[in-house]
């Protein structure tokens, strides 16, 4: 027993080192992208530069958090992009013209998400299929509400998203608030622990006396809620709506979760990492590539290459840790 103690301590230290490295990886990759931007265009590293570059990062971060909730319980939401688009259309039309109706519709859509969670749990359906189907439903509804781009964001929303905070750009403040709120809710609270546990070993959570149905419903409702906030934030920034505005968000949100240190199965997620992952993607998406003088035609492909390299680095570190 005495002889085995040092090796146990050593292996724990090694494990913790690997885990720390993995936790730091999202921040490291963002730092790397920031350094590249600073090197290419030093003027971008300023209050104004960050406000501009991270302008669209907040809706992406919110959608990423939404995606993270379902990934926590081993599901995937392929409809989050078109859902954000649908919310955008509702925000730019009904919420502007008839606020009560708009609020009701948005609340009902969260209810639909909660219902999907219940359906997926009770009928044991694969969430990929259900949400893929729903993505067409949301898209269709969005087009019905707003057949061609237009509408207007409610003034209070425009005001909120255009907020000027002294010293620190608003998107950064918003990102920190989002990350901390979700971190405490999911990582520190008692029920948050139960929700993550349900992703790790559902049977264990059931045997501890918790309802698995409830965990699914709560997680899907949270996804819907953050999807709604994301769509509203997006319209607050763009000031008008478009049925296709959120289509890219599905894959961005999944990539953001994974980039932020989350895993597809097993309830291993990190809200702070997910927000950093979303910011990294937003930065890598266009500011960096524009500064690199990469023509718009190639930007999407270049974006993909950046994503693959960051994920490859993560895989390497994880393997070393294991």
């Amino acid at each position, binding site marked *: *027993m*005495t*002889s*085995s*103690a040092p*090796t*146990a*301590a050593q292996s*724990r230290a090694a*494990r913790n080192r690997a*885990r720390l490295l993995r936790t730091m990886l999202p921040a490291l990759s963002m730092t790397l992208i920031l350094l590249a931007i600073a090197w290419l265009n030093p003027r971008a590293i300023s209050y104004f530069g960050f406000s501009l570059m991270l302008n669209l990062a907040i809706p992406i971060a919110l959608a990423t958090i939404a995606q993270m909730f379902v990934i926590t319980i081993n599901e995937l939401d392929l409809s989050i992009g078109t859902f954000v688009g649908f919310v955008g259309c509702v925000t730019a039309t009904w919420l502007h013209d008839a606020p009560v109706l708009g609020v009701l519709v948005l609340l009902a859509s969260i209810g639909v998400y909660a219902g999907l969670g219940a359906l997926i749990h009770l009928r044991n359906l694969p969430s990929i299929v259900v949400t893929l189907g729903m993505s067409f439903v949301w898209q269709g509804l969005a087009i019905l509400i707003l057949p061609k781009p237009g509408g207007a964001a409610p003034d209070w929303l425009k005001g909120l998203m255009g907020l000027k905070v002294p010293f620190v750009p608003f998107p950064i403040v918003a990102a920190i608030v989002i990350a901390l709120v979700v971190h405490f809710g999911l990582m*520190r*609270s*008692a*029920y948050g*622990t*139960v929700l*993550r*546990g*349900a*992703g*790790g*070993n559902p*049977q*264990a*959570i*059931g*045997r*501890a*006396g*918790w309802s698995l149905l409830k965990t699914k419903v709560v997680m899907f409702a949270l996804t819907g809620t953050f999807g709604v906030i994301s769509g509203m934030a997006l319209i607050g920034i763009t000031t008008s709506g478009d049925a296709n505005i959120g289509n890219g968000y599905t894959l961005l949100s999944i990539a953001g979760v994974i980039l932020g240190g989350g895993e597809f199965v*097993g*309830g*291993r997620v990190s809200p702070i990492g997910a927000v950093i992952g979303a910011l990294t993607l937003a930065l890598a998406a266009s500011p960096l590539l524009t500064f690199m003088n990469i023509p718009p035609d190639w930007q999407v492909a270049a974006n993909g290459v950046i994503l693959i390299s960051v994920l490859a680095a993560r895989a390497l570190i994880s393997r070393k840790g294991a």
Partner: protein
Amino acid sequence: MSDPLRSIAKLDGVKRSFGAVRALDGVDFAVHAKECIGLVGHNGAGKSTLMSILAGTGSPDSGTIAINGAAQSDWTIQRARALGVRCVFQELSLSPNLSVAENTRVSHGALNGWGGAKRAADLIRASLDAIFPGHGISPQDIVGDLAIGQRQMVEVARAFTLTDDPLHLVILDEPTSSLDAQTARQLLDHIRRAVAGGISCILISHILGEILETSDRVVVMRDGKVVADEPARDLTRARLVAAMGGARLHAKTTRSDGVGASQPVVAQVQAGGAHGAIGLQARRGEVIGLAGLAGHGQTKLLIDLFEAANARRKGMTVDGAVALVAGDRQTDGIFPLWSIAMNISIRSLAALRRGAFIAADKEADLAVTWRERIGIRTDNLDNNILSLSGGNQQKALFARALASDAQIILMDDPMRGVDLGTKLDVYDLIRTQAQQGRTFLWYTTETDELDNCDRVYVFRNGQIVAVLDHDDLTEEKIIQSSFAEVGA
């Protein structure tokens, strides 16, 4: 046993069927205050089903449950926990992505709000310290990083933590199956302390010595019925085995014949490498035991050998195809979505081909052959593997390895939680197969099993520290080698 008449939990006429299989056939079972009941029986006798009903995770088809004399009409796991009945399940119930403290928090509704995480950490640390002194587990450790024995310690310690909920009865289903002898001893001592302190326990184990020395009363189940219920002091190992039925008490085995220095060496680990100053040699037809405390490098050696068979590895030579029988069958062994037949044939697909495709008839033949040879209890091999009891799942894994072309079989503590009858069947099979020229490398945490081996290598801290021939093999010597540095 101050008030032996007061029953804290009572089951009457409990019946439960799964499809055509009658798991429980009218069971009456009572737990009194301050007693430890040993529950024994073959795998499939209905022990786990009965306990899941008592713990509230399963429901009976008919029969009644009474707690502290009050009949329970709506018996759920929530109700069971509220009334102080807890269960440590055979397949562990921890979330691997959560820390030890978080897993504790999940099982106690009272650990909410600010400071809940810290209280959970203190609670589980205190419980681990009380039951397993020197456990080396931190509440912040992520459960997925812990060895299976350590997880079992956490799960047991968690069941004994106290918050607002009362605690009257702890059900321990095979709690020692992944623990080494010393840790198992600590647990059994703790059970006696807990019982003295007023908590009742139900202990399920296939290690009859544990049952006899720890329990006040022993209940034997067979084919879904209680067939014996007697004070432990009136029982002996032989009588218990007789009551469980069928299985004979195994005699001291003789080493397998015909293995001598003349046989070629099929697997070799050179001395002075990563596995220590003593080398390992396995000849054709030998059964080699790997012993020592749980988690001291035995599994790693098996995996290294497995890899050495397919790719060059420094200091190791393996001559021939290998197959591995996993011990942690839920994680490393079975394909949970596949049928029994597919689980058996997966290692032999190359031999079952017709052209580029798998020949369905050959696959079915193979599965049927091995069902007969190893005695897997099922009427339909196309059923899902999870329809089998734990012991029979393990038999399917043996069948997978033995049906293959592998000449070297690596076994990673494969008898974990397997009943005595199955074990004896498999021991016979191993001996016959060894006589036919197969080589076995067998890691086991049960000292009795090493009796089947020609030679035993003892591990400590990832290294081989002793070699014992079959004839010199005693439990004392193994323990001595396992703890050498403490003694010196």
